[in-house]
């Protein structure tokens, strides 16, 4: 079953299995395709895509299939006049709605041995994207990261 067939007005698609070793190649391929789709994309925007997408895919790999059999994740890249969207399509667990608002970065005003080693990902995604949109229908998540 292909998740993106007929459901995505796609310009380009990248597919990956939800394991940690698949993330880097998928991110690199996405960056490459984004440049091909829109040659005017700034280096800054490409870097933002690199980080935000890596963080979002880390979350899918870590959380989406904990209680479900792993299945293919699909990245749909679409380009509009003033924005570019990378949509992560998967059939894993629903995204907690609270994460659609920026949770803020972890507090660093703590003793050195209590400094946080995680919890930065979602706030990074919010900061680096212009907007985030999420839909879930028929057990399929569509998380759209929108870049300028």
């Amino acid at each position: 079953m292909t998740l993106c067939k007929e459901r995505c007005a796609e310009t380009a698609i990248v597919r990956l299995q939800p394991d940690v070793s698949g993330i880097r190649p998928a991110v690199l391929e996405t960056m490459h395709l984004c440049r091909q789709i829109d040659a005017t994309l700034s280096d800054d925007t490409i870097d933002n895509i690199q980080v935000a997408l890596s963080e979002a895919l880390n979350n899918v790999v870590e959380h989406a299939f904990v209680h479900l059999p792993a299945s293919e994740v699909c990245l749909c890249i679409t380009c509009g006049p003033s924005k570019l969207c990378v949509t992560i399509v998967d059939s894993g667990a629903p995204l907690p709605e609270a994460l659609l608002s920026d949770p803020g970065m972890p507090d660093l005003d703590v003793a050195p041995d209590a400094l946080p080693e995680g919890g930065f990902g979602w706030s990074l995604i919010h900061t680096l994207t212009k907007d985030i949109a999420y839909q879930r229908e028929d057990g399929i998540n569509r998380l759209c990261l929108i870049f300028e």
Partner: protein
Amino acid sequence: MTLTSENQENLRIISVDSDRIDAAMAIQFKDDMRGQTAEGPKRVILDLTKVDFIDSSGLGAIVASMKQLDQGQKMELAGLTPNVQKVFRLTRMDTIFTLFPTLDDAVDAAHS
């Protein structure tokens, strides 16, 4: 991913010989760092000159490496590329670590 280290006087320079530190390598990085810093010189410089990209897992691994230093050991970071600097800045980790633009800057500061 390789870490190579070089000792100078009371200083250990640990260079990351990889273009990234990300979720796929974070645990290995942390373990390798412990091996490189344990019972070593008091000043450690982590040379990130070759690292073009870190994600939050990579950042977390660097923080973890700092937390597992011996008592009295201090780690500073050198050669952060723009992408890596950005992640440190957005997470405000640039207020926690001492960052040097280049390895030479870090070494000069350690010897002065």
